[in-house]
């Protein structure tokens, strides 16, 4: 039959998997066998793979939910078949607009998207941007175009991979790695940087409310391009793995946000107007929209929260708090208590009070502290509660430093805070989150700005033992995977950079 063909070209084109196929027998044993695993085209039914589904997880990556977008019907058909052969669950689509609406309707319905670059109705990179902003799914670009420029565009727009057509099945076999990698990085990101991630997938898992269309209005500027422009973006240790820039909702920024919202009235506050009122250079409407959504959820939860004195949950607010307003009465109580115990400087009290009431702080002339409002960040999970006063000291020795902020602090740390708080320029207390004690906490808690960097605020001994905000679940956040790191910036030292915020989300269980 065939003599051994030595042409390099020929060998190069020869798909390695081809030799490994069962039907083929291992004819080319001496040739380099590729990654080894061959997905045979058996019954095409795929096991559904959803996070948390243990049985299905064993079969991973089978059942990976792939959305493939390509206007070329031939390619689309071939790709679909190949993906099915890999035991993925494939949805195909020949229009970017259709793909987007599919993704929007079913936020958690897909694990990864593969899209062609050149499409008539929408540029593949635009689609990539949209997906990155809204759904934060890994996206693989593909094209017959292998020019460096185009591939670079893929990189800069945040594609997690770029495949050159004709796409071979081996290239598709491993796309699951992007899904895993992305989640892993997000998790790590939590731990280390504690920044807000917009449109995060995990967040969606934990929230019932999907991201509303408020994020979809208007223009779609890539927030990636704004990364360098945003003043609030904090330096992070672990930025290399993340492709999207994070908006850091510092205390000041959030302050401005709340002021704007209150000015407009919570019902009438739309991202565009808020953005205008805030007048922060580099902030996009999408940033505001996403933040607003979280804020709304927080407020909603505030109104729905009821107290559970018996359990270890610390409630953020009392049952009377139907709205943000009444909440403030509780604030006052707590704050006074705290102030009385010397844990909260009196000056802080005033501003906190004002904050609680949503009033500008005429007394101190300080910007409205965001202590209370900050808490909403932690409210993605309805179960999250803030403790009240010193009554609810749970077994982790949570204490409310400020209203609603449970912390674990050693007494000396509190004292340190107190000291720090004395010399306040502005009101905010900084409580950074750290996980000194239990090692299991570490992966899940987000580190706020490293205590070391802001060490002046807490006393020296606190550097390694920054007070930790724990989930009111009575356990370190990990048990639910909810990390609530509340960062309250203590202003007594001039902190030049806004500090990072809170984020929390359910841990991803892989």
């Amino acid at each position: 039959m065939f003599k051994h063909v030595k042409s390099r070209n020929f060998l190069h084109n020869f798909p390695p998997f081809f030799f490994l196929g069962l039907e083929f027998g291992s004819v080319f044993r001496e040739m380099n066998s590729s990654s080894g695993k061959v997905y045979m085209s058996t019954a095409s039914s795929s096991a559904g793979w959803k996070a948390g589904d243990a049985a299905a997880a064993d079969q991973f990556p089978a059942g990976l939910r792939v959305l493939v977008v390509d206007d070329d019907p031939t390619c689309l058909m071939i790709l679909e078949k190949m993906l099915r052969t890999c035991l993925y669950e494939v949805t195909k689509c020949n229009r970017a607009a259709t793909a987007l609406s599919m993704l929007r309707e079913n936020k958690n319905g897909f694990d990864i998207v593969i899209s062609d670059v050149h499409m008539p109705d929408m540029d593949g990179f635009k689609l990539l941007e949209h997906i990155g902003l809204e759904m934060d799914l890994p996206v693989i670009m593909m094209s017959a175009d292998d020019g460096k420029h185009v591939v670079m565009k893929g990189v800069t727009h945040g594609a997690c991979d770029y495949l050159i057509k004709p796409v071979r099945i081996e290239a598709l076999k491993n796309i699951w790695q992007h899904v895993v990698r992305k989640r892993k990085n997000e998790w790590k990101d939590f731990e280390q940087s504690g920044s807000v991630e917009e449109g995060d997938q995990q967040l969606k898992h934990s929230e019932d409310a999907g991201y509303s269309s408020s994020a979809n209005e208007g223009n779609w500027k890539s927030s990636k391009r704004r990364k360098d422009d945003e003043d609030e973006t904090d330096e992070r240790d672990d930025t290399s793995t993340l492709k999207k820039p994070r908006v850091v909702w510092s205390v000041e920024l959030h302050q401005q946000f709340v002021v704007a919202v209150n000015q407009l009235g919570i019902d009438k506050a739309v991202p565009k107007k808020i953005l205008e009122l805030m007048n922060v250079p580099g902030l996009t409407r999408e940033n505001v929209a996403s933040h607003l959504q979280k804020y709304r959820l927080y407020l909603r939860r505030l109104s729905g929260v009821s107290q559970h004195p018996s359990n270890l949950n610390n409630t953020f607010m009392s049952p009377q708090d139907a709205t943000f307003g009444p909440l403030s009465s509780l604030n006052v109580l707590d704050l006074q208590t705290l102030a009385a115990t010397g844990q909260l400087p009196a000056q802080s009290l005033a501003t906190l009070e004002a904050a609680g009431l949503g009033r500008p702080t005429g007394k101190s002339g300080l910007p409205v502290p965001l202590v209370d409002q900050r808490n909403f960040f932690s409210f993605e999970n309805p179960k999250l509660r803030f403790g009240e006063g010193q009554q609810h000291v749970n077994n982790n020795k949570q204490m409310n430093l400020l209203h609603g902020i449970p912390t674990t602090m050693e007494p000396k740390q509190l004292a340190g805070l107190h000291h720090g708080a004395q010399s306040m320029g502005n009101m905010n207390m900084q409580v950074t989150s750290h996980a000194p004690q239990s090692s299991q906490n570490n992966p899940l808690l987000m580190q706020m700005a490293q205590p070391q960097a802001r060490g002046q605020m807490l006393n020296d001994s606190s550097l390694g033992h920054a007070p930790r905000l724990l989930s009111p679940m009575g356990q370190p956040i990990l048990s639910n995977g909810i990390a609530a790191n509340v960062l309250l910036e203590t202003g007594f030292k001039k902190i030049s950079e806004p500090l990072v915020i809170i984020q929390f989300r359910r841990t991803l269980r892989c």
Partner: protein
Amino acid sequence: MEVAQMQRRLVDYTKTLFMEFLGCSVLQLQQLQDESNPDFVVEVVSLFFDDSEKLLNDLSTALDQPNVDFKKVDAHVHQLKGSSSSIGAQRVKDACVTFRNFCEEQNIDATLRCLQQVKHEYYLVKNKLETLLRLEQQIMAAGGSIPMIEMGF
């Protein structure tokens, strides 16, 4: 002709195609075919034909305009390049590459020539693929099954 003979003929023909024309893709396509989707190859190839012919028509029209819109022409060629490479029509794809280069230069004469070249290659490969499909159909009609190609080196 009996089934076994037909099968042998098919195998040989496929291999020739593979070697000379289509590269590994044709075999990949065959591999993708299975019980759940027995007509996969036929479907894909037919799809390719329809799509390509449409593209070639569009290209002819576009190049026929008094003011040629090279962007549009380029887009069409790019698409043809993509689908032909997916199906393994290597020579068509190469012709497309050349075509695109001339599009960039906005060279009318050269692009017209390229179009002819692409068409030529396309019809060649179409011919070959149709033969392949015919062979397969003959086998299936005779009750046989499509043999898996083993490259016995």
